[in-house]
């Protein structure tokens, strides 16, 4: 039985999760990472993706997040998400709208750097869309 640690998922509108968990899978900007108790202090930005939370009771919950960042210290992990919803409640129309917006951003980017960033974001979103099972 792995040790539990404190995990908090916060969106600007409210505190979604604040509980003792066993492990959390975070879609970090430079690759997914699993956080467990006594993780070395890391701060990372996150890309749009799915956060999987395994609570101390052994229950697994999944949340979709759109960007943000995570602050990981040995005692706990705080995930500040720009917007976060439980996978079951995801609004596909909203997701489609975001993809549309990202596509437009990529289309009217002025220089290469901005464009590559926008395209990266777009591909992250489309990957996310295909990863979520249709309701």
């Amino acid at each position, binding site marked *: 039985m792995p040790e539990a640690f404190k995990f908090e998922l916060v969106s600007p509108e409210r505190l979604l999760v604040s509980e003792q968990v066993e492990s959390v899978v975070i879609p*970090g900007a*430079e690759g997914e990472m699993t956080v467990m108790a006594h993780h070395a*202090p890391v701060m*990372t930005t996150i890309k749009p993706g799915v956060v999987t939370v395994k609570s101390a009771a052994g229950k697994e919950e999944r949340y979709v997040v759109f960007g943000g960042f995570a*602050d990981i210290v*040995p*005692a706990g992990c705080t995930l500040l998400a*720009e*917007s976060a919803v439980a996978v079951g409640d995801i609004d596909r129309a909203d997701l489609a709208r975001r993809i549309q917006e990202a596509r437009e951003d990529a289309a009217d980017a002025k220089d290469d750097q901005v464009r590559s960033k926008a395209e990266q974001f777009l591909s992250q979103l489309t990957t996310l869309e295909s990863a979520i099972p249709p309701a």
Partner: protein
Amino acid sequence: MPSLKDLRNRIASVKATQKITKAMQMVAAAKLRRAQEAAEAARPYSERMGAVLANITQAVGGGGDAPALMTGTGRDDVHLLIVCTAERGLCGGFNSQIARLARDHIRKLLADGKKVKIICVGKKGFDILRRDYGALILERVDLREVKTLGFANADAIARKVIHLFNEGGFDISTLFYSQFKSVISQVPTAQQIIPAGAPSAAAEATDGGNAVYEYEPEPGEILSDLIPRNISVQVFRALLENAAGEMGAKMSAMDNATRNAGEMINKLSITYNRQRQAQITKELIEIISGAEAL
């Protein structure tokens, strides 16, 4: 002297007004509770954001790679004022207080020979400022259709501001809103959001604050991602505080109005009763003196 019928009509109309103000007060009370809950729910995010920001600025150490949003352009010629007010009136001095603070600020800046640009959030502030400084208003953000204030609304405003900053549209940006102290007290506040400046040292005592962090990607890159987000959060917080403040001000304004209407009804009723009694007495005197004359 108004006739009895006039008085009766008058009392009926004041009573109808009282019912309306009473209803508005109760609606405001219910909305206030919701607005307060929303403001409280948003608090953890902004608190943690502040802590993380403090940690990371410490790591970057105010080096040359700090983004311009934080250090500023080095000038203070052009000021952008974001004035957040309510969409609706009937809430006492709430809107005019914010507008007055903004106006004083504008006057001072103009006297110093600075250029001023204004973005109005909310209809009321726009209406007030348009009279004197209509030419300075760049834009007006309408939140009237918005039922529940979401982060997306604040984010849209912040994006506009940042876009303008990146184009060199202004040097310093100040946010005007009303801080929600309690139901009866809202304090109009001016807060500088760009350049953000380094967070105070007091905020640095977070758990593991002195641990050696690993950063993914580089601290500078995270910071440039974080600062715009922080601006959105500040705007969001201002909007939430405003929403709660508006409802608080409306509640007490409507409470006053209801009480005033009650007093007016009392006074009118006394006048009405007295006049009715005078008329009865007069009729009696007429009958008695008529009988005595026989």
